[in-house]
C-alpha cells in the first residue's frame, strides 16, 4: 500500500480521478481516499498538518509497512512552472534539520533540494525548491518505514517570472494532472523496491504450531527463526505431524532444533 499526503484538495483531485480513489466514510479530522493499493490524505497546509496526517494514516493500519509519498506544488527560482521534481534533500527552514531521501532508482524527473518554510515566501533560494509541508511529512513518515520508501514529489507552481500570487487552484490541479505519467513511473519504482523489502521481511507461518501448543512470545520468536532455518536448508515442507507426540512447546523446539542439525549444509 502507498500512502500519499497532499496539502490541498486541488492537489489531490487529479489523483483521486486517475487512480479511482473512493472517499472513506466517517473519517474525523482528515479526508481520506483509497483503493486497494493506495491511500491518500488531504492534510491541509503546513508541516504540522502534514506530520499529523502521516500519523493519522499510519494509525488506520498500524501493522503494515507502507510506501510514503508527499505530493504537491512548490516554488523554485528558475525551474519552469509545471516541471516535476523529486527531493534529494529536504530541509526544515525553522530548525535547519535536513533529510536525504535515498533514491535507489533512476528518478523519472530531475531532483533538487527542497526547503520547507513556515510562512509563504515570495523570494526564492538559489537552486532550492520551496514548500510548506515536506519537512513535517518526512520527519514523521520516516518513522514508519525505511527512508528509501519515503519520497517527496512536487510540481513547480511558481518562479521568479510567475510569482506565487498567481497560483490558483485551477493551475495546481492542471500542472499535477499533466505529471500523472511521471507519477505513475515513480510509484511503480517504489512498489518494486517495496517488493524487495517485503521479501526480506517475509516470515514463516507459525500459526499451525501456536494453535497446537502454547508458545511464549520469546518461544514464538525462536520458533520463527528455526522455521526460517528449516526452509533455507530444506526444500521440503515441514510436516507438523512429526511433532505430534510432543507434550509442550519446549519439546517441540528441542525436536525441531535436532531436525535442523541433521540437515545437510553445502554451498555447492
Amino acid at each position: 500500500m502507498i500512502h500519499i499526503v497532499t496539502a490541498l484538495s486541488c492537489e489531490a483531485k487529479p489523483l483521486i480521478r486517475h487512480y479511482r480513489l473512493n472517499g472513506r466514510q466517517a473519517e474525523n479530522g482528515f479526508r481520506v481516499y483509497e483503493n486497494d493499493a493506495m491511500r491518500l490524505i488531504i492534510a491541509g497546509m503546513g508541516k504540522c498538518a502534514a506530520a499529523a496526517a502521516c500519523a493519522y494514516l499510519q494509525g488506520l493500519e498500524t501493522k503494515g509497512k507502507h510506501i510514503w509519498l508527499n505530493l504537491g506544488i512548490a516554488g523554485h527560482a528558475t525551474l519552469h512552472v509545471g516541471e516535476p521534481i523529486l527531493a534529494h534533500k529536504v530541509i526544515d527552514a525553522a530548525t535547519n534539520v535536513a533529510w536525504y531521501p535515498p533514491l535507489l532508482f533512476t528518478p523519472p524527473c530531475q531532483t533538487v533540494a527542497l526547503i520547507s518554510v513556515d510562512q509563504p515566501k515570495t523570494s526564492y533560494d538559489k537552486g532550492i525548491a520551496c514548500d510548506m509541508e515536506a519537512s513535517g511529512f518526512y520527519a514523521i513518515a520516516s518513522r514508519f518505514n525505511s527512508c528509501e520508501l519515503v519520497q517527496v514529489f512536487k510540481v513547480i507552481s511558481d518562479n521568479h517570472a510567475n510569482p506565487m500570487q498567481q497560483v490558483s487552484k485551477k493551475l495546481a490541479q492542471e500542472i499535477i494532472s499533466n505529471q500523472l505519467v511521471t507519477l505513475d513511473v515513480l510509484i511503480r519504482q517504489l512498489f518494486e523496491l517495496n517488493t524487495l523489502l517485503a521479501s526480506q521481511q517475509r516470515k514463516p507461518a507459525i500459526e499451525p504450531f501456536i494453535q497446537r501448543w502454547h508458545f511464549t512470545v520469546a518461544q514464538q520468536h525462536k520458533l520463527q527463526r528455526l522455521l526460517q532455518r528449516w526452509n533455507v536448508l530444506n526444500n521440503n515442507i515441514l510436516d507438523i505431524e512429526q511433532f505430534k507426540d510432543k507434550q509442550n512447546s519446549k519439546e517441540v523446539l528441542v525436536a525441531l532444533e535436532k531436525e535442523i542439525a541433521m540437515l545437510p549444509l553445502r554451498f555447492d
Partner: protein
Amino acid sequence: MIEALYIEQTVFDHPRSKAIRSRFPQARVVKCQRYSEIFNPKAQNFRLQKQQPSLILAEKFKHFVLETPLSYNIGGQRNYYFSHMLNCIYDCRYCFLQGMYRSANYVVFVNYEAFDSAIEEVACQADEPAYFFSGYDCDSLALEPVTGFIKHILPLFRKLDNAWLELRTKSTQIRGLLEVEAMTNCIVAFSLSPSVLAEALEHKAPPLSNRLDALEKLQRAGWPIGLRFDPIIYCDNYQPLYDDFFEQVFARIDLQLLHSVSLGVFRLPQGFYRNMVKLYPEEKLFAGPLTVSQSMVSYEAALEREMLAFCRTKLLQLMPENKLFICYDND
C-alpha cells in the same frame, strides 16, 4: 557506478573532492553538513542500499588511528588500524560491516594528510615495530582508482623504518602497486576462500582465480604477501574443500615472499549477527550450526576447535609455523 555524491560543505572544494567528482560527471551532487546526516539515520535498509550505493565525501576529525583487538596481529606487539573509507564495494555475506552500519553508502575521508600525521606520530612513539592495518572498515584496494589513498600513503611508509602497513583486499586493482618499487614493510594481504564459498558468499568480489593471479603478479614484483583465511566457513564438506583450496593457493606461493598467514573461523558480535539475519533471513550461512557465547556468535566450540585444528594441520604441511597466526575474538 555512482549515481549520487554527497559532499560535506567544508570539503566541497577540496582538490580530492573535485577530482573524485570529475570521475562521476553524471552523478547527482548533494551538499551536506556532516556525512553522519546520511550515513547514520536509523530508518535505512542496508540491503536495499547495497543495490545502488552512493559515495559520501567527508572530513575526519579524530580517531585516525586505533588499536586493534589483541588477537589481531601478524607477529607484532603494537597493532593499529585506520580507515580512510567506510564500507566496501563488495557484498560478502559474512562481512560484519553489514551488521555494524545502517547505510551501505561508501564514505571516503578526503583529508588524507591528517592520517599521515597520526600514523607518523604513533609510529615514532612506538619502541618496537608498529603494524598498521588499512583494510578493516573497507577493502584497501577496491576503490583505489577513485580514492588514490594507497598511492598517497605508500611514500609515508617508505620513510618509516619502524612501521609496517597491511593492505587487506579481495581486489585485483594492483596496477598502482606494480607501477612503484616493492616495499619490504608493506604486506599485500589477500582474503581468500574456496571457489565454491567465494561464489556463494562473496558477491561482487573477483573470483578466486583472479585474486590468485593478482597475488602472483605482486609476488613476482617483490611485494611481501599475506594470506587471510578468515573467515573459515563451515559446511558438511569443509575438510576436502579447504584441503584442495590450500593446495591450490600454496601452489602459487613463493614461501620466501610469504609474510604471514592468518586463520579464523566465522564469528561476529551478537548484535551485528542479529542485524544481518534480519537483512538476509534466507542466507544459508546463518542457518548453520551457530551458537552464542560471551556475546559472540560463532560455531559451537567443539566444531570451531575441530575446524581450526584441521586447517592449521593442513597449512603447516605447506608453510612454516612461525608465519601462521590464529585469530580469536574472545580476548
